[in-house]
């Protein structure tokens, strides 16, 4: 059986499983949909939330970014897990006590202002749309490989599937479907990692293998990796190269952004009790950590495997020959991925070999001149293909490759569909029904939801063709936007009784606008390529890249809110009482739907 058929079987079987569970556990009404989290054990809820949250960025993209950069990209690991501490300590229990279902409802009620609610809705739409662009990048990679077509065709087909998936209910809110998705996703991620860890270090736990011994050389794995990549002129894997301030701000942006993303926060509104909201955040992180502790091992081990494949005789020997790549079975993956247009090589000096090295490094340029090399010949290695290509690179059995394809699609599709649902309900329910046309019929509301979804996916697909970065980088921008706009408003709403409507609105607008403008200046206006004035290689403000700006935007939000609130009237008595009451768990009834 060829690999294409195996992939088809795995992807088909996993989708049949999700649909089967969705039908079996069919929620009858809207309130059932919202209450899906209630009566569910915190462990189950944590698993479902983890599946909901881990997207193409975590699954497909992140390990590749770590693999090719090393230590400096640890920011993704710390940032996307550290946010759960903020969520558990600063937001989840209080939002549960508040007892409504959406973030914009909380902001509207706490700041007793329809304007505040609308501004929050706009922040959510901007952050979610950016998030979908990143997901579409991942969808394009996964479909391109899975259907063995080029990336653009893969993206267009993927967009149709995502749209269909979202329109037909998205299978969202059905907790047990998400539990199944989590199981597929985590198996798809860890099984190849276990195989590779066993091959390289003999340790079945990848997280431990990373710090273990490289069996072929008898040296520690990371020391071996540092050695071979520096011999090729690349930065040492474990060393710190980038700017420290930027690294801190980037990590902080991801952390605050995690705690400000509506589709994660929503999960904590519906747990049975305040105490469960605290536990749930912990369980969610347990299930996320299973992937996040494995990811750095996947990255490092893949980098080692790729480098050794390109230099089968050692970095001082001869490079891999074009003939080997064409004929030897362990290089089959290169031909498969070349079809997607995301991997490329070229024998520039015509010596029949492919030299992979850092041609920007001065020492290597000298070596290259001596040995007759004319530049790095592994000309294209898209970071987003690494996780999906990893089992093929390590020459693992066909069923593992099929499993990874199923996992990658589950991660990208479920999150993309969930975000599209969030965008469409924000537009139709909050914006159109809530503000523009309150008298709209139910049919009209549904229609506007569909239109909003179609527009969002068209925009995301168009921008996904020329994405502002690799999947995880685009998603990081979305986190920056959420960090600068939503999180400060929520936190001040709980921890300060003094912040009033004007302060919150001014803070959110200032944080959102400054951050979005900073991002557009570096990534192009509305992410349209070539409309940028600056680049992240040489940012406007010193070392602060656009991906790291969310933390600065959050500070601007806090400061603006405090200054404006200080100059205007303090919130009415009943609002201050409400803030006092959400701080204590006592009397938290069931969450009430405002529908």
């Amino acid at each position, binding site marked *: 059986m060829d690999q294409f058929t195996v992939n088809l079987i795995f992807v088909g079987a996993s989708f049949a499983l999700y649909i089967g569970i969705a039908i079996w556990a069919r929620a009858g009404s809207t309130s059932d949909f919202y209450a899906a989290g209630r009566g569910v054990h915190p462990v189950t809820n944590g698993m479902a939330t983890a599946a909901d949250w881990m997207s193409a960025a975590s699954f497909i993209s992140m390990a590749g970014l770590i693999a090719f950069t090393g230590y400096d990209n640890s920011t993704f690991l710390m940032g996307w897990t550290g946010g759960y501490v903020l969520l558990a300590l*600063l937001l989840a229990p209080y939002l549960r006590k508040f007892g409504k279902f959406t973030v914009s409802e909380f902001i509207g009620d706490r700041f007793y202002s329809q304007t505040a609610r609308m501004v929050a809705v706009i922040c959510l739409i901007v952050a979610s749309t950016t998030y979908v662009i990143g997901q579409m990048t991942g969808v394009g990679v996964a479909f391109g490989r899975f259907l063995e077509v080029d990336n653009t065709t893969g993206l267009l087909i993927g967009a149709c599937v995502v749209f269909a998936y979202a329109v037909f209910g998205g299978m969202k809110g059905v907790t047990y479907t998400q539990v199944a998705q989590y199981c597929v996703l985590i198996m798809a991620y860890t099984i190849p990692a276990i195989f590779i860890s066993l091959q390289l270090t003999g340790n079945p736990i990848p997280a431990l293998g*990373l710090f273990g011994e490289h069996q072929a050389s008898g040296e520690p794995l*990371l020391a071996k990796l540092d050695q071979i990549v520096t011999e090729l002129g690349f930065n040492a894997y474990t060393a710190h190269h980038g700017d420290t301030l930027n690294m801190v701000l980037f990590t902080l942006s991801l952390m605050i952004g995690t705690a400000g993303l509506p589709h994660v926060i929503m999960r904590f509104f519906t747990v049975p009790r305040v*105490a469960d909201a605290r536990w749930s955040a912990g369980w969610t992180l347990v299930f996320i950590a299973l992937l996040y*502790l494995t990811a*750095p091992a996947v990255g490092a081990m893949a980098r080692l495997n790729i480098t050794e494949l390109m230099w089968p005789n050692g970095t001082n020997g001869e490079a891999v020959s074009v003939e080997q790549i064409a004929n030897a079975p362990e290089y089959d993956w290169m031909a498969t991925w070349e079809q997607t247009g995301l991997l490329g090589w070229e024998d520039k000096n015509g010596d029949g070999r492919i030299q992979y090295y850092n041609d920007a490094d001065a020492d290597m340029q000298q070596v290259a001149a001596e040995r007759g090399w004319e530049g790095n010949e592994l000309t294209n290695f898209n970071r987003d293909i690494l996780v999906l290509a990893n089992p093929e690179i390590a020459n693992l059995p066909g069923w593992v490759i099929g499993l990874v394809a199923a996992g990658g699609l589950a991660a990208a599709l479920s999150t993309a569909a969930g975000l599209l649902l969030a965008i469409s309900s924000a537009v139709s329910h909050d914006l159109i029904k809530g503000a523009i046309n309150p008298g709209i019929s139910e049919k009209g509301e549904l229609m506007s939801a569909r239109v909003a979804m179609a527009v969002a996916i068209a925009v995301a697909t168009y921008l996904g063709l020329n994405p502002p970065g690799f999947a995880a980088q685009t998603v990081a921008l979305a986190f920056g936007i959420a960090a600068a706009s939503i999180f400060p408003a929520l936190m001040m709403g709980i921890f300060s009784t003094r912040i009033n409507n004007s302060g919150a609105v001014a803070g959110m607008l200032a944080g959102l606008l400054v951050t979005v403008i900073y991002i557009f200046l570096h990534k192009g206006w509305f992410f349209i390529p070539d409309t940028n004035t600056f680049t992240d290689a040489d940012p406007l403000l010193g070392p602060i890249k656009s991906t790291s700006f969310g933390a600065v935007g959050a500070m601007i939000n806090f400061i603006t809110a405090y200054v404006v609130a200080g100059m205007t009237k303090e919130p009415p008595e009943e609002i201050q009482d409400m803030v006092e009451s959400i701080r*204590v768990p006592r009397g938290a009834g069931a969450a009430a739907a405002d529908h």
Partner: protein
Amino acid sequence: MRKESKDAAYWKANIRLIGISLVIWALVSFGFGILLRPMLSGIAVGGTDLGFWFAQQGSILVFLALIFFYAWRMNKLDAQHGVNEE
């Protein structure tokens, strides 16, 4: 009035606990993982140093411990101050 002052004491204890937890949160990630990494470079861990371990794994494990510690401690505080549900 008595109930309010009791709630105030509960909130104060909560803020204190959040403060301590966030100091640890920042110390393991921004501290050991990034800013203080040069200071920890003498401590070897599997082919690299302790700071690298904190940046890629250690901080995540500490985050987990922190959330469960906070949940456990707060549930006890709720009961002590009589502000728990039920």
